[in-house]
């Protein structure tokens, strides 16, 4: 792809997802009462904030040309650890979940950068290991959190009329966006994804940056686990199944190329909201009573949506490739 067509492609990816999100919101606003009511908006944001955190980490990983399959079970492990520590207060619970996530991320970083194993297979292994650790710690059952220590505020509370988990996600996205666009670390992330060998030859610390990216992805997944535990009142060792693929789908829908080198934090957030809104709209549609689609349709529609987006992306990239 030459530079102009790449820019065109990126532009369509970036604005395409925003347009689709806008179209979906307008559709919902015209069709359903209370769709844009405070209650619905805030509960959608509250529920999807943990997915947003996982997707943010995944976005960075994918921009480097890698993949992180371990995020779902890392979130499960984070939720168990934070639930176990929740009787000691908000901070121990929060830091415990975060530390569990960082530990898994450190394992990923070590296996990928030191043992030189493909990210796909390395994170597949840590996914199993994290899931095993979560089950061992939780003794194969949900761990209920302490309601006295105020830990549940992290998931259920509000701050300035806005859900606490949504604040956390918002801050994470602001930081993520600044880091990617305005720091040399962020530029190195993009350079590695564009061409890792070239980045290395230019003297960029490719291994260190990659290690940090997987560390960050693990930490964000651990944080998502903390929110999961706080929101539903329990650490859940078997939650998180399929989260990694949801996150990948959100990142791809946001126009980030899986081959790396291109991507945007903001479009990833739009991708998360888009996939999340599909579920929300399905609920409203059932509420109207015209049709009765079971929750199972959710995944079918999400799959179809992903197909539509990647098919359009493929078409565009094929067309832009041809003249070159």
């Amino acid at each position, binding site marked *: 792809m030459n530079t102009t067509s790449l820019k065109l492609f990126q532009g369509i990816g970036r604005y395409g997802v925003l347009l689709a999100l806008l179209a979906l919101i307008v559709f919902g606003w015209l069709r359903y009462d209370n769709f844009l009511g405070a209650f619905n908006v805030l509960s959608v944001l509250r529920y999807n904030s943990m997915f947003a955190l996982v997707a943010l980490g995944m976005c960075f990983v994918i921009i480097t040309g890698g993949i992180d399959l371990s995020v779902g079970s890392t979130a499960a492990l984070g939720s168990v650890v934070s639930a176990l520590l929740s009787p000691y207060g908000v901070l121990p619970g929060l830091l415990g979940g975060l530390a569990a996530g960082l530990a898994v991320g450190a394992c990923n970083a070590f296996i990928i950068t030191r043992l030189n194993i493909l990210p796909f297979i390395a994170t597949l292994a840590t996914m199993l*290991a994290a899931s095993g650790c979560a089950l061992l710690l939780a003794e194969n059952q949900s761990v209920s959190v302490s309601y006295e220590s105020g830990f549940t505020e992290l998931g259920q509370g509000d701050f300035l009329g806005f859900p606490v988990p949504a604040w956390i996600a918002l801050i994470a996205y602001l930081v993520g966006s600044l880091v990617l666009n305005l720091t040399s670390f962020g530029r190195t992330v993009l350079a590695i994804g564009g061409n890792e060998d070239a980045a290395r030859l230019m003297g960029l610390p490719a291994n260190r940056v990659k290690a940090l990216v997987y560390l960050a992805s693990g930490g964000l997944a651990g944080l998502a686990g903390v929110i999961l535990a706080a929101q539903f009142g329990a650490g859940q060792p078997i939650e998180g199944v399929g989260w990694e693929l949801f996150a990948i789908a959100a990142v791809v829908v946001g126009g980030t190329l899986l081959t790396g080198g291109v991507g945007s934090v903001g479009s990833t957030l739009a991708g998360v909201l888009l996939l999340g809104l599909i579920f929300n709209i399905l609920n409203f549609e059932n509420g109207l009573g015209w049709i009765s689609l079971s929750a199972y349709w959710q995944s079918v529609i999400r799959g179809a949506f992903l197909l539509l987006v990647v098919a359009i992306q493929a078409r565009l990239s094929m067309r832009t490739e041809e003249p070159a």
Partner: protein
Amino acid sequence: MAETATTLPPTQRAAKVDVRTLLTRHGAWIALALLILVNLAITPNFATWQTLNVNLTQVCTIVIVGVGMTLVIATGGIDLSVGALMAIAGALAPLIFLGKLFPLPHPAVGIALAFVLPVLATGALGWFNGWLVTRLRIQPIIATLVLFIAGRGIAQVFTNGNLQVFNLPSFQFIGLGRVFGIPFQAILMIVIVAFAAWMLRRTVFGRQILAIGGNERAARLAGIPVASVKQRVYLISGLLSGIAGLIVIARNSAADANLVGLGMELDAIAAVAVGGTLLTGGRATVVGTLVGALIIQLVRYTLLANGVPDAAALVAKAAIIVLAVWLQRQSHR
């Protein structure tokens, strides 16, 4: 017994055989032999017919799906949709032989169709995966992610998420039947593995698969019909997933679209990786996948039989995968 990994171009003959080459080339076989020896020493009642049958039935579906996965990975692709396709086959078969989809002239017709139609359906979906990969040129991991997400939903929509219970010995033979005391599914597995191993080594199609995985551009320039070969590989993976789905529901006397084949893509990929197939394509061994699945299963069995919780076995599985792939890399240095 020493089916070394099939490689293109032909395997370089190592001038001297040192321990590292031995370990990386035949590591899977050595590990399997060691595991069996350890078990003979420490696990009570290990050398029994029953232990063999238990372990064989545990790996059957993983191996059958793993064979398709081996072929897909050999072309440099991946198939994440296998578990979801198993759920679709598992949901369709009972609907057919219970007569819920269309009236049946005779129960025997229903059973015959319950074997054929679900497998054809998953084959068609596999072909669809191949179409996305070859015609729309979508990366395999994303192309098959579509059906990974949507496929299980389709199966759940078919059955409304309900458990379908049945008792039909003639259908369940595929999962419960025995021939001379050997589980029928194990025989089926061996036949599939043998056929696929032969195909990969001895047929033009097999060599084309490896050539594409080795260097797709070169394969295309050499006149290999890349798109058509890839298309067929995903089709095969779909067909085999369908068969595995039927085995699972026959074994359980019930079809649960929420659970059939859940996590199978990871088990199959793990078996392929441990078995010695190169994950970047171009070098593959079907028999290795069988060995890989047996190793993972035997480690789990060893730990469980000696009182270690199942969750700890997951951690062990993770360690085996990393170790196996790391050893594999050493031989490519």
